[in-house]
């Protein structure tokens, strides 16, 4: 029964056109970025950086390098928006449309309904991140050769991730980073989902979740909160970048994963508790 219900929720989500907006946006932005990489002087700058550090530049300006570079703006801007758009819709849209009342005239518990909806969101997040990674790889391969991977990502606080590796190793880390990105996407969705369980419009739930994220970014960037940065959710979102660090800080990544798992569970419990208590009216 649970899997039938989960399948129903997936059918509802993937039956909607707006679910695919995120996929479309990724596709468009990736191709625009690829055009910029191909025809701007970005390649020259990267070659200088590599050669300055003793690497053969032509070996590392590749599919994997470009695919990782393309991830950064998409993860910062597009992913939160599209994941939270879906997360904000999950409960609030059904309440707004009136279909929630029809579902809740059936013998299904509210917690079970929420669990299937949340799992649907988790599956969506995982698919979106997988599609993001696969599309980046596919389109980058169309324009660049399959060679070694070079990563150069400056982090807040002066730290820089700099690494160069073979194509095989790079692909392994690229896949691993997408697992962490899926956890990030899932956490963003859980935040929007939590607000969606309250009596509000779907857009309001999305905006509140985005505001929460924005607030976290702002607070993390203020020197005043330097000692408190571990409490900022966006600080832990950055663990995907640490996969490329040499050596990989496994303990730090595990800590961030635990924090994000906690945020997911907390968001679900808060949302489910309020949803259980509220009256569902037309």
């Amino acid at each position, binding site marked *: 029964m649970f899997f039938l219900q989960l399948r*129903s929720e997936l059918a509802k989500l993937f039956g909607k056109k707006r679910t695919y907006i995120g996929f479309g946006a990724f596709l468009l932005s990736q191709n625009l970025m690829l055009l910029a990489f191909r025809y701007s002087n970005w390649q020259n700058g990267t070659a200088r950086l590599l050669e300055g550090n003793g690497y053969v530049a032509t070996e590392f300006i590749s599919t994997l390098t470009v695919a990782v570079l393309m991830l950064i703006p998409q993860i910062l801007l597009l992913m939160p928006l599209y994941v939270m758009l879906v997360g904000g819709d999950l409960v609030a849209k059904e309440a707004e449309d009136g279909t929630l009342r*029809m579902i809740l005239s059936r*013998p299904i518990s509210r917690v079970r309904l929420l669990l299937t909806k949340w799992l649907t969101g988790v599956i969506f997040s995982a698919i979106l991140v997988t599609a993001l990674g696969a599309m980046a790889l596919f389109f980058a391969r169309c324009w660049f050769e399959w060679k070694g991977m070079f990563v150069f990502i400056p982090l807040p606080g002066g730290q820089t991730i700099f690494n160069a590796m073979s194509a095989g190793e790079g692909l392994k880390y690229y896949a691993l980073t997408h697992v962490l990105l899926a956890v990030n996407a899932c956490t963003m969705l859980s935040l929007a989902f939590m607000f969606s369980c309250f009596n509000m419009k779907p857009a309001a739930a999305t905006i509140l979740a985005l505001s929460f994220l924005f607030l976290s970014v702002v607070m993390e960037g203020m020197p005043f909160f330097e000692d408190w940065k571990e409490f900022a959710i966006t600080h832990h979102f950055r663990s995907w970048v640490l996969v490329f660090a040499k050596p990989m800080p496994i303990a730090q990544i595990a800590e961030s994963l635990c924090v994000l798992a906690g945020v997911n569970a907390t968001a679900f419990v808060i949302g489910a508790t309020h949803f259980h208590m509220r009256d*569902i*009216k037309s």
Partner: protein
Amino acid sequence: MIRLRQLSKCFGTRWALRDLDLTVSRGEIFGLLGHNGAGKSTAIGMMLGQVWPTEGEALVCGYDVSVERQRALLKVGAIFETPVFYDYLSGWKNLQILSHYTAPTPPERIKKIIEWVGLTGREHDKVSKYSHGMRTRLALAQALLPDPELLILDEPSDGLDPEGIHEMRLTIQRLQKELGLTILLSSHLLNEVEQLCTRIAVLNQGKKVFEGTLADAKQTKQWVRLKVADFAKATASLQSERFITDTRNASLVALADGVKTDALVRHLVAMDMPVYEIAQEEETLESFYLNLMQDSRNSAKASTAGH
């Protein structure tokens, strides 16, 4: 099938429903009447476990909905005013999805229900292409899917044209005759309730002001149309002699228990008041309802003035 005990709901400081006691027996079509905001939908919401009661309990199919919601609703179907579906999916897919919230439903059952409601041939069309009447039929189909024993219909004819209302009425009658369902019908279409229901309850401002059979409703008072030269003077005299208990619209009088019309005529003639016309007035559900609402308003005003 339904038993409500002292059911109350308070939203903030406003009581939407107050001390509602109600019993709906197996096999009957029970009408829940009341104006908009009278508390009908709140009561239905509490029967379906969608609205938490502030006080009291709602027993559906023998189970307390607040405690054992899943068991209580296992054999219950419901339709709400303005049926809404996932418009971007087909009627069939909608039914499939909604059935999964109750129990796994074989495709044969869905096909049978679609035939029963008369949607065969259109079930694979997107719901966005359905007319209002077709959506209502689909709503009925989703309510019938779990093979219910109790059907809760919250203003099912809302938004339908006269032909659609007629069709819905026939369907409700068929549901009771062919499937033996117990039906709770909430409506403000008095004509519809009059033609369908065996018993009714009337809500006004969250309180039950009447519960009984339609015959009870029509016979709460024996009204007589009286035409005399001076209605006020005549009724004052009749009231002082306890022949009548009430008057209405300066043309109707309610006879006291055991009093017949001939006694009225004799008394008025003896008082030298000519009687031009006297006849029994047939009470309709509409007149009963309107008077009930008027009485409720009057008593509310009186209690406010008393305070």
